Structures are given as structure tokens and as C-alpha cells.
């Protein structure tokens, strides 16, 4: 079992709902893709390349000011539930954690974390640096990351090309290597059926959306990750600026949609919220997906102050701890336990009762 207490905040300060626009935006995440000169990219890397990359990165992290003392998780030496736990915590990608069916983590797959900055090693690129912040906080997230990147870049020879910028394994990431995503809750736009228009509009302005767990994941509980599609031909500043502008607009649309709902159908909205709350408070079996959908309804009500005394932080905590691996660890079960839905319902009841 991994010891997550090594991370001062369990790597989860991003969910404390303290950030700007916390009731609509859960978190902001930015990542930079980097590769080292002299080593084959992931696709053609041999085990020796991978372990070479990991050693170099570990040495650089130890020698750096910002990242020294980082906690290292060797995904290639961890059991599946622990890897899944890190994935559910949004600290590693599904690919690095080797969670796809029949997949195993690649040799040398590791995560180094210090504070809000994480370094995935031997993912699709040699290095994926990421920074996470609570709420809508693109600039703050980038400040953390930029400093760590600059330091690592002075200690390690990154692959860089004067025309193409930072070279990445997949050309979709070349240039800045920067992908910023904002995890946003849009129940208002879904209920008013305006979400289709908004999502379609995103692709026209060079943005894209994904589900709760990023690339390739489904949208559950009305949570969307909005991020930049292109990484080359614009500066880091411009990319963040553009995403920021559009997200601010989406937040505005969402707030308008919620107001519209409250005005035109106050009873229906209250009914939806309280039904969801009632089910969470009293159900005896809950699947993860049902929990997410109910939490979405309750979250909408909490944002509109319909449910007094219920904090967004509690809802964020439920969002994380009702995921299979988290729940299993918390309640000493296995992720495949058929009783997990019962355990989940009991856990949710306990937390909500404590808040009521």
C-alpha cells in the first residue's frame, strides 16, 4: 500500500474549493510536455532508455530548488489499486498508470510530486510536468509550473528546435508542449439544453473538451474539461489568455443558465436538487456513476444556496472518495468487491449526516 500521507495534502489541495469560481470550476491543470536529447521517445525507447531518463530526471529534481524533496512513486513497482488511486486523484494519466485492459505500467514509469507540481516520467513524453490549482486559476497554475520547468531545463538538455519549439512524441503537442485544462461543472447548460451549442462553439475557437479524467474519458455528472487544442504558433501567454477568455464566457453562460432555471422553473430545480440529496442521504446501494450524477444535482443546488449548510468542499471530497480505488482503500476493501456499492452508500450517508 502506498503512503499518501507523504504528500502534505495528499496531492489534493486543488479540491478544497477555495479557488476563484469554486462552485462552477473544480480545478485548473496545466501540463508541459518535454523530452530529453539523446534518448529515444517513448514509442521506440528500450528499457535502458527509460531507466536512463528516470535517473536523469531524479538527479535533476534532487538538484533543483523548487522540486527537491519531491516524493517519488514508481508506478512500475506498484499494485493496480494504488496506481488507480493516483489516477483517481488526477496525479497520473491512465497511460502512465497502465490501467487500460491488459496493460501494465512501462518500466521506469514514475511520478514525482512536490506541492502543486507533479512530474510524470516516461509517459508519452519523457517528462510531463503538471501544476494543479483549486478553482479557476490559470495564471497561478502556470507560475508554479514555469518556474519548475525553467529550473529543470537548466539541469537537463530538453529537445528543442528553433522552428518547431519543444519536440514531442506526438506532433499535436509540439511547440509549447502546453495543455491547460479547466475542470468545470455545467449542469445549468445541460438542463437548459444549451450545452451542445456551447461545446460546438468551443471547437470553432480552437478549444476542445474531454470528460472527468481527461483524454478518452466520458463525460459523467456534467463535469467537462475544457482545454486548448493547439500548442504551436502561439505563445504560452496567448494560449492561456485565449482559454481564460473562453472559460470566463462559459462560466457566464452557465451562471445565466442557472438564473434562468431558477426564474422559469424554481420548483423543478429545487425538486431535482432535493431528490438527488434525498437519494444520497438514504440510498443503501450506489454505483459510482449514479453517485456522480446525484452529486451533480446536489452541487447545482448548493451553488444556488438551495441546501443550507452543505459546502462545495464536502461535495468535492465525496467526488474523490466515492471513486472505486479511494473507497476500497478507505474502507479496506478490494476494487472488485461486489459489496462496494453498499459500502459507497454507507460512506456517503455518513459524510452527509455529519454535515446536516
Amino acid at each position: 500500500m502506498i503512503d499518501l500521507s507523504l504528500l502534505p495534502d495528499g496531492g489534493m489541495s486543488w479540491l478544497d474549493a477555495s479557488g476563484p469560481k469554486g462552485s462552477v470550476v473544480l480545478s485548473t491543470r496545466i501540463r508541459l510536455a518535454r523530452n530529453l536529447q539523446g534518448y529515444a521517445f517513448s514509442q521506440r525507447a528500450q528499457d535502458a532508455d527509460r531507466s536512463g531518463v528516470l535517473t536523469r530526471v531524479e538527479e535533476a529534481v534532487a538538484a533543483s530548488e523548487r522540486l527537491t524533496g519531491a516524493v517519488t512513486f514508481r508506478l512500475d513497482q506498484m499494485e493496480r489499486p494504488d496506481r488507480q488511486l493516483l489516477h483517481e486523484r488526477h496525479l497520473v494519466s491512465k497511460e502512465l498508470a497502465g490501467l487500460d485492459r491488459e496493460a501494465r505500467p512501462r518500466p521506469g514509469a514514475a511520478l514525482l510530486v512536490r506541492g502543486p507540481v507533479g512530474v510524470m516520467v516516461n509517459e508519452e513524453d519523457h517528462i510531463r510536468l503538471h501544476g494543479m490549482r483549486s478553482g479557476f486559476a490559470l495564471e497561478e497554475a502556470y507560475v508554479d509550473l514555469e518556474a519548475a520547468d525553467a529550473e529543470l531545463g537548466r539541469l537537463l538538455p530538453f529537445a528543442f528546435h528553433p522552428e518547431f519549439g519543444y519536440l514531442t512524441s506526438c506532433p499535436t503537442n509540439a511547440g509549447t508542449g502546453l495543455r491547460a485544462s479547466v475542470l468545470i461543472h455545467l449542469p445549468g447548460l445541460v438542463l437548459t439544453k444549451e450545452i451542445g451549442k456551447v461545446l460546438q462553439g468551443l471547437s470553432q475557437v480552437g478549444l476542445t473538451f474531454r470528460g472527468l479524467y481527461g483524454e478518452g474519458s466520458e463525460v459523467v455528472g456534467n463535469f467537462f474539461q475544457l482545454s486548448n487544442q493547439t500548442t504551436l504558433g502561439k505563445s504560452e501567454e496567448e494560449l492561456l489568455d485565449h482559454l481564460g477568455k473562453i472559460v470566463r464566457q462559459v462560466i457566464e453562460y452557465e451562471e445565466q443558465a442557472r438564473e434562468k432555471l431558477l426564474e422559469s422553473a424554481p420548483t423543478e430545480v429545487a425538486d431535482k436538487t432535493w431528490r438527488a440529496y434525498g437519494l444520497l442521504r438514504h440510498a443503501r446501494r450506489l454505483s459510482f456513476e449514479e453517485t456522480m450524477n446525484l452529486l451533480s444535482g446536489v452541487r447545482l443546488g448548493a451553488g444556488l444556496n438551495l441546501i443550507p449548510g452543505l459546502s462545495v468542499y464536502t461535495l468535492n471530497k465525496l467526488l474523490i472518495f466515492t471513486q472505486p480505488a479511494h473507497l476500497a482503500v478507505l474502507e479496506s476493501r478490494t476494487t472488485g468487491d461486489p459489496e462496494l456499492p453498499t459500502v459507497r452508500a454507507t460512506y456517503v450517508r455518513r459524510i452527509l449526516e455529519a454535515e446536516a
Partner: protein
Amino acid sequence: MLCDSCKEREAVINLTQVEHDSKVTLHLCEQCAQAKGVETGVSVLKSPLGGFITAMGKGATSLLPTAADGLRCATCGATLKDFRESGRLGCAQCYEAFDSHLRDLLRRLHGSSQHVGEGYVAPGAVDTDPRRRLLDLKEQLRRAVENENFELAADLRDRIRVLE
């Protein structure tokens, strides 16, 4: 608004240029913008490339010419065919080996193949690349014009002339 150039089609982009110290904004349709060498981004979205961008992650690089399949990176041994099939390059030198194909692909994917973000010099290397300095200055000039800081823009323009 109609295109300033052909006056027929709907303008989809605003092109701002600096000519003789003054800012000129042209409203152009997609075709005229392309004729002037500007990537509109609109074409990227209208063509199947919108889907292609998503599909790249899954290894569909069907737009690369199969005729050049045998092209091989001398460093890692990866061929253009490998790249077309996997969507992943083998090493940093692949970008040199498949230079022209990649430039084309990058333009289609991102609307540009020219990095304008932060520059980088590897530890121990000396930054002797005047091209990068030039690009850096041009980017600063663009921002100065955007912010209507014309004094700085004039200064930057002079420095660019010297380098060019």
C-alpha cells in the same frame, strides 16, 4: 461583413499589418486569406482534419503521403510509415528527418509550424541562433503593435532590420 479583397465572400478573419508605421486591418474571407499566405484555422475545422486532430492521439495519420513511407530517421531508425501508423515519432531527430512532411502536418494541425513561445537553450549550449533572436523580436513587435506602443514598435523594427 464582406471580404475587403474579393468583395464577394463573407470575411472570416481580421488581418492586422503594419505598413509605413501605421496599422492596417484587412477583413478577409478564407480563400483570400489563404492566397495571402495566412492560415485561417477555419479550413482546419471545416475539413476532416477536425476529426483528424482527435484521431491523431489514436494513431491515425492518414494524411501523410504513402509515397514517402520509406523515409527513415538515421538516429532511431523509425520510418515515415512507422509514424503514419502509430502517430508517434521515434526521437527528436525524426523532426529533422521528416522535416518537410512534418512542417506540412504541423501547419494543418496547429495553423502554423513556427514556435513563438518561450525560447530555450540547453545547458552548456551557446545561443548562436540569430533566427530565434529575430523571431523573438518579431513577436515582441507584434505585441507592441497590438498594445499600440508605437515607440517601442519603431525601436524593435529598427533592430529587426539590422538583424535581417
